């Protein structure tokens, strides 16, 4: 085995691996990228029903309703200019409450109704997910300080 030959084999191996990895990455990216939208964008852009997305905003005050099964929750998610109805079944994160910024992941089953399979409410009382803060700024409803 000469040095040249060995280098060639290593190179071929690396190339094969690299192309396999690239194929995997491209395939995985196509299926698994989840885009983030604000309620306004959802209302105006016409997101396809069934497409997996994330949506962030504030849980509207006095909008949380629980079904009789005790597990299904409906609430309105707002960026203070548009509102989308969200339905979620499961245990809410302990930081979930009305008036708080949350991010929901799932899909629309009608143009203004969102089925969430995951709700993210993070970390602390004053914390606002930056995506939500930006969504509020975009809709012109941001009341916090300038960052």
């Amino acid at each position: 085995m000469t040095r040249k030959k060995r280098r060639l084999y290593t190179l071929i191996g690396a190339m094969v691996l690299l192309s396999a990895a690239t194929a995997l990455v491209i395939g995985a990216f196509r299926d698994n990228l989840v885009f983030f939208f604000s309620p306004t964008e959802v209302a105006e852009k016409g997101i396809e029903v069934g497409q997996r997305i994330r949506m962030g905003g504030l849980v509207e005050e006095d909008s949380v309703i629980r079904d009789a099964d005790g597990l299904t929750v409906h609430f309105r998610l707002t960026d203070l200019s548009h509102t989308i109805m969200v339905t979620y079944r499961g245990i809410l994160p302990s930081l979930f409450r009305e008036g708080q910024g949350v991010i929901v992941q799932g899909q629309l089953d009608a143009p203004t109704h969102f089925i969430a399979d995951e709700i993210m409410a993070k970390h602390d009382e004053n914390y606002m997910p930056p995506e939500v803060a930006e969504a509020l700024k975009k809709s012109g409803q941001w009341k916090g300080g300038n960052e």
Partner: protein
Amino acid sequence: MIVEIGHIALIMALIVALVQATIPMIGAARGDGRLMAVASTAAGAQWVFIVIAFLSLMNAYVTSDFSVFNVASNSHSAKPMLYKIAGVWGNHEGSLVLWVLILATFGGAIVLFGGNLPPALRARVLSVQALIAVGFLSFSLFTSNPFERVFPAPLDGNGLNPLLQDPGLAFHPPFLYLGYVGFSVAFAFAIAALIEGRVDAAWARWVRPWTLIAWSFLTIGIALGSWWAYYELGWGGWWYWDPVENASFMPWLAGTALLHSAIVCEKRDALKAWTVLLAIVAFSLSLLGTFLVRSGVLTSVHAFATDPARGVFILGFLIFVVGGSLTLFAVRAPLLKAGGLFAPVSREGGIVLNNLLFSTAAATVLLGTLYPLFIDALGAGKVSVGPPYFNTVFIPLMAPLIVLAGIAPMLAWKRADLTGVIARIKIVAAVTVLVLLWSVYRAWGNAVFGAFGIGLSAWLASSVLFDWAVRIRLFRVSALDSLQRAIRIPRAAYGMSLAHFGVALLVAGVTASSAWRTEAIQVMRQGETISVAGFEFLFHGVVRAEGPNYTADRGHFTVTRAGGLVAELWPENRFYPVQQQPTTEAAIHTTWLSDLYVVVGDPDGQGGWSTRVYYNPLVPWIWLGAMVMALGGAVSLSDRRHRVGAPNRRRRRLMAGEPAAEVAR
């Protein structure tokens, strides 16, 4: 007063680090022994100053000195002592002091154990270390001063984020940092070697133990973090492919590759440039991790502060270190002469393949982690790359790696007989097939893919055991003879076997807990029972309980199986009044073969509580596996051949006996 002493000590440490970063480097270039000797003294002094600074800060925390802004924002007088101490590194400023403390400790350790390093190499290594320290000390002093006073002092502090008030997390940052910062030693050696323009077996022998230490600590650190996420976040999962998790995982992947390639470098004098590159990459990824986590570009429990100045500073430092070292590599690497030749089918070949797979995996994780940032920076919208991406990409890369780990250790160096090895491991193949068939049968109709993960695990575990049995000639010679052979096997070999066995445990745990977990979510009333995976969970209701600095709604479950008592579980929903923040405390009963995991949620207003019950098969094996891996690292380190002091004698022999080694240049 003590606080000011700490502040001054930190400034002194910066000045000393500046001296240490320049004078010995000049000395090494000129061959001036006196200038080079400055390095050791400076490293010692730097360590002493940083210890003083760290202890002063800790004192402020322990005595709850709220005139210090950092203490006031992150501590509280009613906090248990453990969390007052852990609170030192539970925030951005304090964690940086811990960072530099560990960096200086590694510097001191190089002085202490590196007595037989060639003086020029030692001077350069310590200089590079000091350069990193200069970066982090100025970062701390100029953008994140932990000793800043606040006037008037508040009556009490803001407290530590309740999620972080947890014993598992108290020790997670120190271990993680020991890993991150530990790679700085390999990095410093790599830079020093590039400056000198030579890498030889002796160099690799010095680098290996440091890499091994860093790798073992990082393994423990990541495992602790994942364990914490498992029991504290209340979702029953242990890995989320969250960017901050990836930030710690990427250096681990690169470090694991480095660990293996350094062996080839030492034993066969090959893969030199590659090993140097991996050392640079592993530390660069550690820095990148620090940047991602600390700059606030990612939002997570770790992003303590979102001060843009800090982000810019770390980014600048990152560009300087990564760009500088890669440029140096590009210029100097061609000087590193390639050494021993080997056939594709050989131990070296196996390790090369291992390295290709590990670095590809690290690259895909890097891509998935940074992609949302790029897209955001380009203004093309906000995306998230979630677990499905990482699972689809990562698992197909890891599966061949596990297969490889079962064969490669049995291949001979230089040129191996693959068919011979395959013929010999019939038993391993048979065990694997049996386990595979059994798990396919057990899992039929329920995530059958999981059976292949179990098969991989069985393959690796049985191969490790088989290899050991062959080495001690088990059942071929008398038991006593076998025992003597077992004792004579070098500890480094035991270390490898243990680490690989740990991987097998980990793979089994990961597979089973992902594929066959059972989950039940429901509303329960007092006296109700639900059945999950053959266990009966009787709910006794919820009572109010008081903790030291929180109040809790404490649920009570009695778990039985076929009438016999299994466990009493007490999950809690805590509320911390200081931070006005709730946390969920899962109650977990482990049988070592599975975990029963119970969380209590909100009341439904009609006397019922939402509850979540998980049956997680083999999940404890994940952390057990990680601990066995780290233990393998420790056992390997205890090998005499790995001792940092040992290379001297061997080096002389190399100089005499092996002309290929460039020591004798």
